[in-house]
């Protein structure tokens, strides 16, 4: 890895989600040198864990693949996976970053043949599926993961299984002696595209996410629809595997609430409207969806989508923030308690499955940035002169959908380009 060339005219992109990929491509396609530092073993970020995109209901894999091709085709871009920026010093036009690279234990000889995965027995929580199932200790994070290269879980190192993986590989790709390394990279500008994470549903105690099996989060619901996901693409209840036809969505789960996240996470109304179509997709007219909401925020062009869902007779909208969820022990059904705002009627409604439309928070805790950076109360990066040559792209700056995240990333790329252009001029 120490062969990466970086100068004061290099743009460092931290985070290789859809925003980081976009910023990297925009800058590289006008001739700038870009290095992408991605924490996970693959790029694509959280959109790779979505089943379909609103509003067009197309598959995210399609857009990811196009971007991946543009990255592969562009020799100005270097992607470093399983890497994190641990230190950042300097100012606009002259930064030095310390980048810690964790060992993958698999080198570039890997053809993703899968023999190592078959050979090992140890299994670990599958983070790609939000720990809903297990994966092998030698694994490809998901089918279309880029780079197409296996990973050996560090928890397996030193066990017989690690040796089994090595022995199974015909391409001499398993290297159990790989070590963590820290490298230093120069950069003229830095783009933080570190994205978001789902709000911890356990904190919303009255909803019983930690106690009631059939209460899940919206991100888990997305994974269930994936034919290669934890349920093989079936919409079923975690408690007993029964078909989940009568599904409730609870909006603002953790958002717009001074006890949790103060901000509106902006995408979760559209995410639930989209996910209501998943239930219809699986069960047709047997689908019975209820959406509990404070108000539906489907802004500008999304209103058409909202109207379409409103017209669906299998979807009911209930204007009410659910007060609490109690499990019916006899059948595992979560029962929702609350009072609806249109009539002030008290309800106790049973559903097969409850989906919490959890909010978005920044993936980087505000006091862990390697350099001083202006963030707002919610921890999203502000656009501020004081940040010098460090710019945010996508969900590191705000709760955004993909369209807006990508627009934002393009703007960040332009700002970074201006900085390195100034350096180029000065250096003649």
């Amino acid at each position, binding site marked *: 890895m120490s062969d990466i060339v970086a100068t004061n005219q290099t743009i460092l992109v931290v985070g290789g989600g859809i925003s980081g990929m976009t910023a990297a491509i925009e800058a590289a396609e006008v001739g700038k040198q870009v290095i992408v530092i991605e924490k996970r073993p693959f790029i694509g970020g959280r959109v790779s864990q979505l089943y379909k995109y609103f509003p067009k209901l197309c598959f995210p894999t399609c857009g990811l693949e196009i971007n991946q091709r543009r990255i592969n085709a562009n020799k100005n871009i270097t992607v470093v996976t399983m890497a994190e920026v641990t230190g950042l010093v300097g100012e606009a036009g002259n930064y030095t970053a310390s980048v810690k690279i964790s060992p993958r234990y698999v080198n570039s000889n890997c053809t993703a043949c899968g023999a190592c995965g078959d050979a090992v027995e140890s299994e670990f929580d599958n983070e790609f599926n939000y720990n809903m199932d297990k994966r092998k200790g030698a694994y490809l994070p998901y089918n279309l993961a880029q780079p197409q290269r296996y990973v050996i879980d560090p928890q397996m190192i030193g066990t017989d299984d690690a040796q089994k993986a090595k022995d199974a590989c015909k391409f001499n790709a398993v290297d159990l002696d790989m070590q963590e390394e820290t490298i230093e990279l120069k950069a003229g500008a830095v783009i933080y595209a570190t994205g978001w994470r789902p709000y911890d549903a356990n904190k919303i105690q*009255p909803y019983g996410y930690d106690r009631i099996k059939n209460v899940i989060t919206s991100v888990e619901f997305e994974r269930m629809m994936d034919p290669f996901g934890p349920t093989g693409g079936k919409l079923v209840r975690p408690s007993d595997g029964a078909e989940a036809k009568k599904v409730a969505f609870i909006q*603002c789960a953790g958002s717009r609430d*001074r*006890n949790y996240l103060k901000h509106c996470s902006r995408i979760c109304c559209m995410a639930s409207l989209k996910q209501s179509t998943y239930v219809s997709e699986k069960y047709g007219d047997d689908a019975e969806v209820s959406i509990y909401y404070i108000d539906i925020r489907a802004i500008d062009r999304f209103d058409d989508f909202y109207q379409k869902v409103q017209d669906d007779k299998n979807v009911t909208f209930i204007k009410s*923030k659910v*007060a609490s969820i109690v499990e019916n022990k006899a059948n595992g059904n979560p029962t929702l308690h*609350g*009072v609806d*705002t249109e009539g002030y009627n008290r309800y106790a409604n049973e559903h097969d499955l409850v989906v919490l439309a959890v909010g978005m928070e920044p993936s980087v805790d505000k006091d862990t940035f390697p350099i001083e950076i202006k963030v707002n109360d919610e921890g999203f990066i502000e656009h501020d002169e004081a940040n010098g040559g460090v710019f945010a792209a996508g969900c590191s700056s705000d709760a955004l959908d993909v369209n807006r995240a990508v627009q934002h990333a393009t703007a960040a790329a332009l700002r970074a380009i201006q900085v390195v252009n100034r350096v180029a001029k000065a250096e003649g």
Partner: protein
Amino acid sequence: MSTNTGMVEKYRNNFLKEVEANVEEGEWVKMCMQCGVCAGSCPLGSHWAHPPQEIFMMIRAGKRDEVLTSDSMWMCTSCYNCIVRCPRELPITHIMHGLANYAKRLGLTPKSQPTAWFSQVFWDNMMKKGRVNELKLGLSLYFKDGLVSGIKESIKHQKLGMNMMKAKRMSIAELFGGHGVKDISDLQKIIKKAEEIENARIESYGK
């Protein structure tokens, strides 16, 4: 002109303004986003005529008579469930008590509302000596609905009374005079001052 019609005229039928000016924490009412979590979390559940969420909407809709003559705010047990849950941190319990207090000031409290009745008895009892006389308070509570039911109630709670006496929490001597603070006139001065401050606050609203 009664205080009541006076208030209506003063706030030109804008009941929200009237509440903001006269009710403790009343300026919070406009912050309610009608999410319903307070109503859904209140242990009184279906016993309410109007749960807090609905009361706040009624205030904004100018339903002055319905709100002020309502039994609802007298039902609040100060459990604080609603405050803990409100996404906007409205001091709901305080507003409910503030509304009850205001309705009482205007003489609009529903007749024979037990909480209102008890509050008055409690207050009068305490203001006599500066300390609550548990024995007299308890007896007046039991005999509230007449002699016969009073005797029945007293017998029912006999054991509790005996235990309280044993634990020196109550004394039969309380019937004759009872304990009090050293100088009741000081307490009365404090209360008078508090009333002045409260009136000045109401007076100064919007100025």
